[in-house]
């Protein structure tokens, strides 16, 4: 077993926590969200629909633990309830529609930021105290501190509205039919540029900072000094020894950052009308479509947990010291 049981326990607890929050919150709220949802359904509120909402949100005469069991049963069968806004679509359908775009956006942004941030961090550490370091490193910390809203609005204003370089909405040109061809992929790529550029600064800042610090500590270790003494070139030492080992904290960081990245993607998708989970979450929250909001939290929690798990696995693969120790 590569992943320690304890980590799995943590993930299980996190998942349980999200479920419990989802379950208890509507039951704690005064003025019952149930009424507001039924009101919103208007004439669509058939007895069956009302019954379903009531059951899910606890407006039924039933012991709480039975309700919770029912709730868990629903989750196990991917039954996240029915959307209020998009009735009669289920939450799963609504989320499935947009999850792909967010995944695409986040993964692209992560890869892009990883390349840029890690390189900047490595170079800054290598030339510690130099002019490059003196400028880039504080700048990275500043990037972390600027909310994505600000960056998104600035990007939209500059590149979308004033200069009109990039399209300001959609995931691809609506006149195209999705298909495996050059034009379509080109369009998808083109439409993703501004959102990705908006999501990236925060991550670049984080990666740069982490990479730099971890690189500094790695550079002080014996085997790096050895490599240098052996007369290996700077680049060789930097990449084959130092950078590789310094990557480990960056990866841990990446997994933990994912939650924040999802937060950023919400704002980004709203500003650029990008049809992902964030936009869905926003519309749902404006419409008080509680089932969708809850489903969203579960989905994003699962994604973050998955990423953490993946990092745990990769840790063993990448870290030679850990492997040696084990074999």
């Amino acid at each position, binding site marked *: 077993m590569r992943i*320690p049981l304890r980590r799995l326990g*943590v993930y299980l607890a996190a998942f349980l926590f999200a479920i419990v929050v989802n379950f208890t919150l509507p039951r704690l709220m005064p003025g019952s969200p149930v009424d507001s949802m039924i009101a919103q359904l208007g004439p669509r509120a058939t007895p069956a629909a009302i019954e379903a909402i009531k059951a899910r949100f606890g407006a039924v005469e039933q012991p709480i633990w039975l309700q919770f069991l029912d709730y868990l049963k629903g989750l196990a069968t991917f039954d996240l309830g029915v959307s209020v806004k998009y009735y009669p679509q289920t939450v799963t359908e609504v989320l499935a529609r947009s999850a792909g775009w967010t995944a695409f956006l986040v993964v692209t942004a992560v890869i892009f930021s990883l390349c840029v941030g890690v390189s900047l961090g490595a170079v800054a550490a290598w030339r510690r105290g130099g002019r490059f370091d003196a400028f880039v490193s504080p700048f990275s910390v500043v990037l972390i501190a600027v909310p994505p809203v600000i960056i998104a609005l600035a990007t939209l204003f500059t590149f979308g509205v004033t200069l009109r370089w990039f399209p300001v909405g959609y995931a691809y040109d609506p006149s195209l039919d999705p298909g495996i061809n050059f034009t379509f992929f080109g369009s998808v790529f083109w439409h993703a540029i501004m959102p990705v550029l908006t999501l990236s600064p925060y991550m670049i800042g984080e990666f740069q900072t982490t990479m730099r*610090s971890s690189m500094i500590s790695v550079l002080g270790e014996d085997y790096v000094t050895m490599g240098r003494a052996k007369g290996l070139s700077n680049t060789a030492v930097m990449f084959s020894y130092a950078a590789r080992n310094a990557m480990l904290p960056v990866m841990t960081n990446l997994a933990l950052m994912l*939650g924040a990245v999802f937060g950023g993607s919400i704002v980004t998708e709203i500003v650029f009308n990008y049809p992902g989970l964030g936009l869905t979450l926003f519309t749902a*929250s404006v419409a008080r479509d509680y089932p969708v909001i809850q489903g969203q*939290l579960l989905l994003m929690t699962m994604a973050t947990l998955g990423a953490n798990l993946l990092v745990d696995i990769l840790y063993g693969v990448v870290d030679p010291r850990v492997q040696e120790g084990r074999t």
Partner: protein
Amino acid sequence: MSSGLKLFLRQKKAVAGFIIIVALCLMALLAPVLAPGDPAQRVGRSHQPPTAEHVFGTTKMGRDVYAQFVWGARPSLAVGFATGLAITAIGTAIGLIAGYFGGRTDAVLDLTTNAVLVIPNIPLLILLASFAGTVGPMAIMAIIALTSWPWGARMTRAQTLSLKNREFIVAARMVGEPWWRIIFVEILPNLVPLIGINLVGSIIYAIVAQTTLEYLGFGDPLNVTWGTMLYNAQNSSAIIVGAWWDIGAPALGIAIVGLGLALLNFTFDEIANPQLRSGPALSRWLRLNRLRARELRAVR
């Protein structure tokens, strides 16, 4: 402490950051002097560009952006700082308790900490905020504080764990000092740099989260804060109609606070890691990552 002060003053960036934050706080405090009158008052025509009379222009409603900027700094900074303090307090307390007492207390608290840590924060915030409806500054504070403490708790716990077995603590215990005395008199002072980093980071986070929530429309639209200024500007399509000042002023305000705090964070890092003084920055992340690596290795 004085050596810390000297160290602090030697850092140009930190001094700059400190000046920025102090200046902004002064501006917020002196709002009645700097921009007398009610910031919600209509003083001119809709979306007037900056002039001598209205240096930051006017909003769609014909309100003075400068006055709103100055007054809006009050709740924005207050909520940011107060929430940051709350996050730090909760995190430090939980970390200290877990680290010092160990055993089952630690196991439970650590599990909770790690669990809350991996749940995506902003979606959780949005869930809480949408169940609460339109929320005032206090509710925003509470929501952010209750979901964002695990970072600090983890760092504090790790540090406490390593301090716990140092000679002076062991000695204090042998002498029979009560636990609260050990925690407050022996351990806490050693955590000050760490708490500082935690505090600054938490304030940054609180301001980011608060802005996001208000921008999404969860704030009270009638409160003048930087976040609701953004929300109102966005709703009056300020960007598209070319009223950049309407959105630019609050955006700049938030960005400057971020800049100031980020620069300050450098210093605390320095103080916390004197051995790395030559290289200016080590963030809170690194410690956490090392810790995690150590922990992983230890478990295997």
